């Protein structure tokens, strides 16, 4: 068992993970030595950048290997996905500076990223489960970490219970699948989709439900708004973007080469559609920015699951591109959010009133983010949505594509309402309002650059995915 491990492959294939682990260990050591606080962030940044760069480099080599047969494998596409998601973690780290002064944030975030890295590479449910848990568990702590208001505990609790229940559901599905097929490999899922065996079908339904729960698809979405609202800005940003993206990448890995067929396809058709419609409708009446983003993310989870209707080969690309496009602009919005003494104030949409007159840069960035989230061209959100719906139409689900697009139309209103608050409404600044911190603004600029690249050169980006 152990002798079959090729040391060089084990080193290279998991290089991004190794670098993250190195970062975690280094930060902990620095914390132990008592000189963490200030420099922990830089170490974590270095680790994330290095591991992202490593993933990109390996992807470009191109490198493919399965160092632990049947458990973990990488291909250039997977490495690209990892690199892209890790790169998205850089702004999250940067904007954490204003909220978290010590190293705990870095440690937890890096741990979560480690789990994220495992997901697209998982060949067996063992690794996938490990990845999902490693991804989610530090986030519970992160939600609680910046304890700004009593709701934080509540939101962490809700997230934990729902996510825990999702994990258990996932495991039950895995167990049944294992019982039916005798294999722990994720590949069996694809074949199981079309199976008519009652146990297998139950397993598939459970797995899908777990994914829907983790990705907050209606009707399993109730935790998302509460959790997002109670967490602090960098954590919400992380949850809304990277965590969701990672879950979707896990789903891509799960569906692997399988085209969606069989009796369960209705589940994949209807729930995402409902998610799109309900997410967009519910977002309209929100008074809190983070809740609004939560409902928007529920709708976006719907779009992302739409990608699974498309043909198998384009799926990874579609999901990854969407996740990157969606995350970049979300992070952009969060990065430039002005600071306020109280978290409630910082979070309230009313605080954005007339922001343009106080802080034109922030207002413009948030506006760009909102427009991109709404999927209006020329922002990257449009190209991403286009790709997904193109695949859906190509696969023959034209009716659902049209319904999905109409659903996305419903969302335009509330995104525009944010712009209306920013630009067209007079509002006084709260006395404690300040511009976002320097590092956060740097994160914003990074995201802006990313947004522009995605908007101007989507072809170039797609060619690499």
């Amino acid at each position, binding site marked *: 068992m152990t002798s079959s491990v090729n040391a060089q492959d084990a080193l290279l294939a998991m290089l991004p993970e190794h670098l993250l682990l190195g970062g975690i260990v280094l930060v902990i050591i620095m914390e132990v030595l008592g000189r963490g606080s200030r420099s922990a962030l830089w170490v974590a940044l270095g680790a994330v950048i290095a591991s992202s760069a490593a993933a990109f480099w390996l992807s470009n080599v191109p490198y493919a290997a399965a160092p632990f047969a049947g458990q973990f494998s990488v291909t250039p596409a997977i490495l690209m996905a990892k690199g892209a998601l890790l790169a998205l973690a850089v702004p999250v780290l940067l904007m954490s500076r204003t909220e978290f002064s010590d190293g705990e944030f870095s440690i937890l975030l890096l741990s979560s990223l480690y789990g994220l890295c495992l997901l697209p590479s998982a060949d067996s449910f063992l690794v996938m489960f490990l990845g999902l848990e490693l991804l989610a568990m530090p986030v519970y702590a992160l939600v609680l970490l910046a304890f700004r208001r009593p709701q934080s505990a509540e939101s962490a609790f809700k997230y934990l219970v729902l996510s825990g229940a999702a994990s258990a559901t996932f495991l039950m599905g895995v167990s049944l699948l294992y019982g039916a097929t005798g294999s722990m490999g994720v590949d069996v899922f694809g074949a199981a989709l079309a199976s008519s065996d009652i146990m297998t079908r139950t397993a598939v339904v459970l797995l899908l439900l777990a994914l829907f729960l983790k990705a907050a698809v209606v009707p399993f979405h109730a935790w998302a708004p509460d959790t997002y609202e109670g967490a602090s800005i960098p954590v919400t940003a992380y949850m809304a973007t990277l965590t969701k993206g990672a879950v979707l990448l896990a789903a891509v890995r799960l569906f692997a080469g399988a085209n969606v067929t069989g009796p369960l396809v209705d589940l994949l058709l209807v729930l995402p559609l409902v998610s799109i419609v309900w997410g967009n409708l519910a977002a309209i009446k929100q008074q809190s920015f983070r809740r609004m983003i939560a409902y928007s993310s529920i709708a976006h989870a719907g779009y992302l699951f739409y990608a699974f209707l498309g043909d198998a080969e384009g799926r990874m690309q579609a999901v990854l591109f969407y996740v990157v496009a969606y995350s970049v602009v979300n992070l952009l919005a969060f990065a430039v959010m002005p600071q306020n003494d109280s978290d409630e104030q910082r979070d309230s949409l009313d605080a954005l009133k007339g922001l343009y007159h106080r802080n034109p840069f922030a207002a413009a960035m948030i506006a760009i983010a909102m427009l991109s989230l709404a999927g209006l061209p020329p922002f990257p959100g449009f190209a991403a949505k286009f790709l997904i719906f193109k695949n859906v139409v*190509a696969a023959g689900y034209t009716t659902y594509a049209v319904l999905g697009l109409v659903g996305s*139309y419903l969302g335009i209103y509330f995104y525009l309402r944010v712009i209306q608050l920013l630009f067209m409404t007079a509002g006084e600044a709260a006395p404690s309002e300040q511009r976002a911190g320097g590092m956060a603004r740097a994160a914003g600029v990074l995201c802006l650059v990313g947004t522009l690249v995605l908007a101007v050169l989507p*072809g170039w980006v797609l060619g690499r995915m």
Partner: protein
Amino acid sequence: MSEFTMGPMLLNLVLWLPIIGVGLVLLAARANDGLSRTISVAVMTVQFALATVLYLQFDATAAGLQFATQLPWIGQWGVSYLIGLDGFNILLVLLTAFLGPIVVLGAWTSIKQDVPLFHVMVLLLQFAMMGAFVAQDLFLFYLFWEAMLIPMFLIIGMWGGARRVYATLKFVLYTAFGSILMLAAVIYLVQSMQQSSGVLSFAFADLYQTQLPLSVQTILLGAFALSFAIKVPMVPLHTWLPDAHVEAPTAGSVILAGVLLKMGTYGFMKLGFPLFPDAARAFTPLLMTLAVISIVYGACLALVQTDIKKIIAYSSISHLGYVMLGLLSLELVGIQGAIIQMVSHGLVAAGLFLLVGMIYDRCHTRELAAYGGLARLLPVYSVFFMIFTLASVGLPTTSGFTGEFLALMGAFTAAWPAHLDGNNLPLVLASVAVTGVVLGAMYMLRFALTFLFGEVKAPHQSAEHPLLDLSLREKSILGLLTIAVFALGLFPDGALQKTELAAKTYQSLVTTSRTPAASPMVGVTP
């Protein structure tokens, strides 16, 4: 497009100049507002000059695209950066470029807040409009088409009147709804083309080759038409327009009436009908009826408005009905008339909105009843007002006459043979459309009479603040528009020549059937 010559470069420059302008304005944003204005007017002027060069160099006899650039952009989707001039868009490009400096100059003093942002938005809008006209790739077109919304949203929403937020949201939501369906249709169209012919491309030229069964054509045309009809706007999808016009600042109204509304008719002409010719022909009676209803209904509504901006807004609905009528006639003369009418309406409506804006800046009200006898107070203003009113009515020698006359002529030319075949509808419609001209004369003259003559009334004026007549800036922009209006009215030949080939192309595209022999079932919905 074999070799890279000065021509394509020039078109690219015309397209991208506003973006350069945006950069410059942003750099100057911290300095003073005047600098922003100067930069943007300079950029617009240069753009207009270059567009004029393009117009002059445009070879009316050459088929195909001119000054074309094609660069691969999103290769995976068959999307390329493909722009070029042809008979369809040459006049509209010129119109857009011409209105650019006029808009900026028109807003010179009326926009006082957030001046740099305003100019950024105007420049972005200019870029998007220009892009939508010159794009020869459906994806690119859609991109520009949608991108127009955002600056317009802000222009109305930030610098508009009291109910600006309501109006601008209504505008965007209406327009976006059509666009979403159009997007679905675009995706379906390209996908089915790829499946039937194996070609993955968004280029118009390729898409004109698609073979689709009539049922599919109908649905797709429905989606496209909805989007375009909202933009035109055709009754009954017009309700956003009065609100948007009334609440928009003068510059916004000018752009909206001058260029943005042309997008819809341009879309019909360039995309809607040629892409789905069989469906277009099948639905001509319906569309034509709607066009005539637009003409008459718009005119009737204009007749009873008390808000001066609304009168012009409803007149736009009426005037664009002629464009649709001309396009649907499928007669060369009607098509050319439609193109001329587009340009003409762009000039005339722009002039009228500018005039209304100027009086609003002075008197701060748009109530028709509040005004009267302005001819005594503001002689120069009144002269210009009369000119544009008459052009709007369609007095011969003005551009309005050329456009409406040719469009109606097209309608009758098409109607007569049909009448002989026993189909009386076209003839009835054409006849009803003519009443639109009369109604147009009625509401415009009512407007002008109450406005300029009679008892002298003008709000917000006193001894300390006398009502000033037009400044040099205002005179010059109105003068420019007047020259253009007369030029197009007196010498339409040049413009007609440039568009003749395009009109023929359109005619042949729409009249050729493109249903496949054996309809391949693509994208069957489960």
